[in-house]
């Protein structure tokens, strides 16, 4: 037991991050507030981070941990752009509910 991360069986990490990922998906699909959807997307990305770190710790290969940094940077950029888009929408329609966005339909 060289690593504190390895004190917990690997499958538990897998189950936990899958659960978090599913909570994220459910949030994106069922919540109507764009900010909460954004938070749920972050939850999905962070569950992936957890998964990558645990795989990396168990296989003794640091690639996965480096990947986590990439994900964090990209997630930060993504949130910045997403919030900026939300701001411009809020200025136009004074709401962050995605149901008001119904101009484009077939």
């Amino acid at each position: 037991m060289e690593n504190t991360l390895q004190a917990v069986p690997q499958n538990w990490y897998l189950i936990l991050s899958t659960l978090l990922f599913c909570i994220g998906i459910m949030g994106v699909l069922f919540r109507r507030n764009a900010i909460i959807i954004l938070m749920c997307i972050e939850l999905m990305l962070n569950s992936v981070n957890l998964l990558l770190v645990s795989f990396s710790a168990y296989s003794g290969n640091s690639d996965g941990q480096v990947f986590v940094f990439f994900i964090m940077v990209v997630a930060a950029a993504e949130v910045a752009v997403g919030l900026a888009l939300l701001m411009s929408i809020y200025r136009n329609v004074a709401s962050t509910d995605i149901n008001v966005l119904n101009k484009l339909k077939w």
Partner: protein
Amino acid sequence: MTTLIYTTCLGLFCMLAEVLNLRKLLVPALIIGLSIIFVVNMQQWGITTPASIGSVSVSHMIKMDNFAIAFSGLAIIISLLIFVLSANYYKDEQNQLSDYLSIMVFVLCGALVMFSYNNMAMLFLGIEILSISLYIMAGSRRFDTRSNESGIKYFLMGAFTSGFLLFGIALIYGASGTFELEGISKYITAGEIAPMFYLGISMLMFAMLFKVSAVPFHFWSPDVYEGAPALITAFMSTLVKVAAFAALYRLFSHCLGGTMYYIEPMLIIVTGATIMVGNVTALSQKNVKRILAYSGIAHAGYMLLGVLSSQTNAASSVFFYATTYAFATIGLFAIAIMTFKSNHNENVEAFNGLAKKNPFAAALVSIFMLSLAGIPPFAGFLGKYYIFSEAIRNGYVTLTLFAVINSIIAVYYYLKVIIAMYSQTANDKTLVIHPTYMVVAIICALATIGLTIVPDMLMQILR
């Protein structure tokens, strides 16, 4: 690798141009810069030295093989044509010109990464560089609620699928212990594939099929295409689609080829559904951008046929198809943007009587429409022919027949625009096509006709 570095520097230059008060020089500088990058890119042809930055080898991240160089060349030409259009398109928004152009150059950077990735990390970064820039561009008309809506829809769905892409990559990493394409490919050939790995490639496929807007993950594309500014729609429907396809093709030819037995049934259904839903839904559309979005979905279906046949080096036929599709679409948008502007209308009626107002423009639009429909004298026909013959060689006869029948259905909605131009009465508004738009349209028309005369020029390079 040099291609990517130079393009990034060009993007940074565009951002600085605003500070240095070089706004007037911006578009000419971009065009010259991209032409130089094109030449630099082509000089790497056939050179197999591993990619490196200075003395540090990055070959486990990026591999500039001929496939990557060919697609990079195509992407640079597409962006060149779009930047030529942008000079006039953004003439009323000079304050934001350098922001828009630099973000568009960064889209190109993302695409270049997607053509040459050799590691799942680079695939992810390429997709994100491309997408994040596009979210901004789709929503770039800040005071237009339609543009806002298009931006946020694209953003929410794109970020949602990024989650799936990452979860898929994480599971593949967990099973195979590596992010490198060759390592994963070795893991597949070694047998003993963990169930986790199959789940991983399913999620990865879901994300990639979303990016190429294949049915049933296509719902974002018509909405986003309709709401985004027309120039960005042209950019998205050409460069981004080509990039997504090249990435998908590379994934199969370099990495997941060994799991084709698992992906094949799913991919066949998706291909058939994409071709049919794209064409049939386009029949009832009125907005030209929406028609082109659905036609783009249908074309994605034809290119998926090429991806299905990736085992027998179908790269050249996919490349040829992508080229014909991109030229026809850009040319079409060059005329359509002017038509939309003069009529303040983006429906098919905007084209009414174009043949009387501007017969030459109408003739060009007809060429592009017929090329997209795949009518013989134009390049689109050859593109379809190569894709279909490649698919038949791989034994997908029923699917190919289905695709042929659907491409006949598609003729209806392309002809709808041509009929509007030639047989409807014109309104009294005059239509002056700005010379830059005309130049782009003529270049695209020459390419569309020229490729039928010398198709081998493109078909041989990726053999």
